[in-house]
């Protein structure tokens, strides 16, 4: 039985476009149709009880993280604590043994009855890839492509968007990154900080819902980190949803809404950014932050 609301109606004029929008919104998030007023019903990204090991060594043990729209989450922790692995699991570069991963209404992996994670089809994974972007520690730009082609290639080849539109967006992104006029340069002609900003533009050109960063500044000379951090700050000001693994504690405190402190593959402490940095509750968080402060 169809409820009247679901019955297609003939509407003419501007109202038709409005209904089209509503229908699209409803189709993209069926969970929200019952209460359209309730926002963020399904978090943009949800990781639940993720377990992952390399050669029988447990690297992630029972990690659960949720990120909602517009939120900036920072992940901190000592070397080897599993931060990168967590990001790589969320971005499908690694698979995990058990747990659940979803982007909005798209379930990427879920436990079966035996408690083993089963991944969705390639097709669903491809859909999920369209929802996130990843910025690597060492940029991973394509060295044989110009700056413009690095940014425009995937939107054109993967999303099949027209060249003019993509190039226009790419130029706007470059302007935002403070890289106007660098379209035709090769990555090898740019500084590390500039390369990383191109990598950020490349990720943004696909219009992701979530952007992941894995230590975006740790391959950079200290004097070049600020230009990348500034770009990320500006994105945060625009409410770009981001998950940032970083060793820059003060940056994390200032730019993130929430911080997760990881150690030995587990989340030790999680809290509001300023609270966690200024006033950590757990002994291990305190210890980590103090060694960090001592190192600086």
């Amino acid at each position, binding site marked *: 039985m169809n409820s009247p609301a679901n019955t297609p109606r003939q509407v003419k004029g501007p109202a038709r476009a409005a209904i089209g929008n509503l229908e699209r919104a409803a189709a993209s998030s069926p969970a929200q149709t019952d209460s359209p007023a309730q926002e963020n019903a399904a978090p943009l990204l949800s990781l639940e009880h993720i377990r992952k090991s390399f050669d029988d060594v447990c690297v992630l043990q029972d990690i659960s993280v949720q990120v909602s729209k517009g939120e900036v989450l920072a992940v901190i922790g000592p070397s080897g604590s599993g931060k990168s692995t967590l990001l790589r699991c969320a971005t499908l570069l690694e698979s995990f043994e058990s747990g659940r991963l979803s982007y909005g209404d798209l379930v990427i992996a879920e436990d079966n009855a035996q408690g083993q994670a089963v991944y969705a089809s390639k097709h669903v994974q491809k859909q999920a*890839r369209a929802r996130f972007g990843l910025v690597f520690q060492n940029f991973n730009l394509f060295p044989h492509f110009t700056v413009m082609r690095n940014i425009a*290639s*995937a939107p054109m080849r993967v999303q099949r968007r027209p060249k003019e539109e993509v190039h226009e967006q790419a130029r706007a992104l470059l302007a935002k990154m403070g890289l106007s006029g660098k379209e035709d340069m090769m990555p*090898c002609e740019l500084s590390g900080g500039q390369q990383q900003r191109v990598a950020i533009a*490349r990720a943004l050109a696909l219009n992701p819902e979530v952007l992941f960063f894995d230590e975006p500044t740790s391959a950079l000379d200290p004097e070049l980190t600020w230009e990348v951090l500034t770009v990320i700050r500006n994105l945060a000001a625009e409410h770009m949803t981001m998950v940032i693994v970083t060793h820059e504690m003060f940056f994390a405190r200032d730019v993130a809404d929430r911080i997760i402190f990881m150690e030995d593959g587990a989340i030790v402490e999680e809290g509001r950014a300023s609270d966690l940095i200024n006033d950590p509750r757990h002994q291990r968080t305190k210890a980590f932050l103090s060694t960090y402060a001592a190192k600086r």
Partner: protein
Amino acid sequence: MLAMLGSGFLVSLQIFFLTLLGSLPLGLVVAFGRMSTFKPLSLLVQFYISIMRGTPLMLQLMVVYYVPYFGFGVSMGDGYRFTATIIAFIINYSAYFAEIYRSGIQSIPRGQYEASGVLGYSQAQTFFIVIFPQVVKRILPPVTNEVITLVKDTSLSFVLSVPEMFTTARAIAAAQKAMTSFVVAGVFYYLFNLVVAAAMNLFEKKMSYYHE
């Protein structure tokens, strides 16, 4: 004499270009077989490569030529001499090119694959848009070596009496009881390799619009 050597040179050229035309693409296919995660295929290809590299090309030419007759009792016409030469050269050079491709492909950092995957490229797109163009640049020097060797190796087809330049030079030398024809043939090979080296050099320059 020059006219005879000239027509021999044309045959050498044919062997040269047909071999490249066949073995450059086939080498890529062989490289994929070698890198396959399907172990039996990978082992089989490894075996093929080691035979091709571990036995003389001259012997391989003879085997390819005689296999239809002694193996299957089929006697091929005289034209098979040339065909056998091309087949032997292609399967031999494919093995060498495969190893060059493989080392090139494996030298591309994992991050390039990961970045491509995250951007949503399919595996085929990743290979042809991102990986292969970088591989070409990296393998140009060893490929140049092979190509220059190939120019000289074409002379080996004299064992099947294919009328290429070296076979012709030998015939002339025997008839004239003089070695002038060998010297002239040598000059031909040398000049041709100069051209090949210059062409590859130009190609390398073309590829130097970026470095890593």
